[in-house]
């Protein structure tokens, strides 16, 4: 029977948390290089929680958020989602485009910038995972959606829902000066990939 996230023991959870820490650290470094500014980061919070409670983390299921979604192929298959509230999305695009204020909605240029930064963050996250596990991982082009949190989150939750009732997410806070970007990474291995992942980490 395939392993589900509900069955993990504390060692396995700790290892996954540590990957989350390293991945988020590398993501912050990549972001810092890209904008040529120092980026500070809080210690990422890695949570395993029931999917019912996930929308509350971003302020409720009806709050508008930006979700950037990637498919992962290679030795394991699955998906990654990077979720930002709209204020953080705006801050992030302002950082990238080196400006302080702009209108509320995101224009095409900003959406494109957001996809690109999502790409870099997800890529650096995955490469840490790849180095740690020795697995070959390939990430797809990003797909971005801005909509209600509940609706965006239904995608990773459904994917997780086929294997269990809990999701793993890595909450990361980036700072550049007064700009604060709060991002959530969801790591979603497919059914059989979870076991491969844990095996290659030597905790199964």
């Amino acid at each position: 029977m395939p392993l589900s996230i509900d069955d993990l023991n504390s060692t396995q959870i700790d290892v996954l948390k540590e990957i989350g820490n390293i991945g988020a650290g590398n993501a912050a470094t990549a972001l810092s290089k890209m904008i040529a500014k120092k980026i500070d980061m809080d210690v990422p919070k890695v949570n395993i929680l029931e999917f019912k409670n996930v929308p509350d983390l971003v302020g409720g299921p009806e709050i508008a958020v930006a979700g950037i979604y990637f498919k992962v192929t290679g030795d394991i298959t699955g998906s990654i989602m990077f979720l930002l509230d709209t204020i953080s999305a705006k801050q992030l695009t302002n950082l990238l485009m080196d400006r302080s204020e702009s209108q509320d909605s995101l224009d095409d240029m900003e959406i494109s910038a957001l996809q690109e930064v999502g790409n870099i963050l997800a890529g650096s996250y995955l490469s840490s995972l790849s180095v740690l596990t020795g697995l070959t991982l390939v990430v797809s082009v990003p797909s971005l959606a801005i909509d209600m949190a509940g609706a965006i989150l239904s995608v990773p939750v459904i994917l997780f829902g086929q294997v269990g009732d809990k999701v793993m997410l890595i909450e990361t806070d980036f700072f550049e000066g007064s700009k604060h970007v709060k991002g959530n990474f969801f790591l979603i291995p497919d059914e059989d990939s979870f076991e491969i992942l844990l095996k290659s980490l030597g905790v199964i």
Partner: protein
Amino acid sequence: MGELIKVGMADMNYISSPGVLTTLGLGSCVGICLYDTSTKISGMVHIMLPSSIQIKNNSNIAKFADTGIKKLLDDMLKAGARKNKIISKIAGGAQMFNFNDSSDVMRIGARNVIATKETLQALSIPIIAEDTGGNYGRTIELYSETGVLLIKTIGYGTKQI
């Protein structure tokens, strides 16, 4: 208007009139509303996946179209609803992210809608209105006094079905 009752993800509930059932931020999930036009007993279930078959972890029956709708109907009948007066309205089943290939995983919204329709047909419950598909989220509210289903979106307006 009566009280407002929230139905979460993979959750269900039913009420007697007056009252409003709501589920917030439906994406690829489907919200199924059952409404008894005679007693005004109203039910809502928020399903995530098409079928409980072939899924090992299937203890939460509200998660699946096949088992969720059946259970909601049973509960409503026990509460005094009349089977031949029950109609349904459905909403949701969007595809939130677009990828070039149409793998099963990404088409989950469409598959949820198909499974919902098959289940309702098997239970002989007519679908009198639907707002499904697209690539955007929906919040739905079912008003038990009238049977009206209100659908709210970000950027795609509000409508009643």
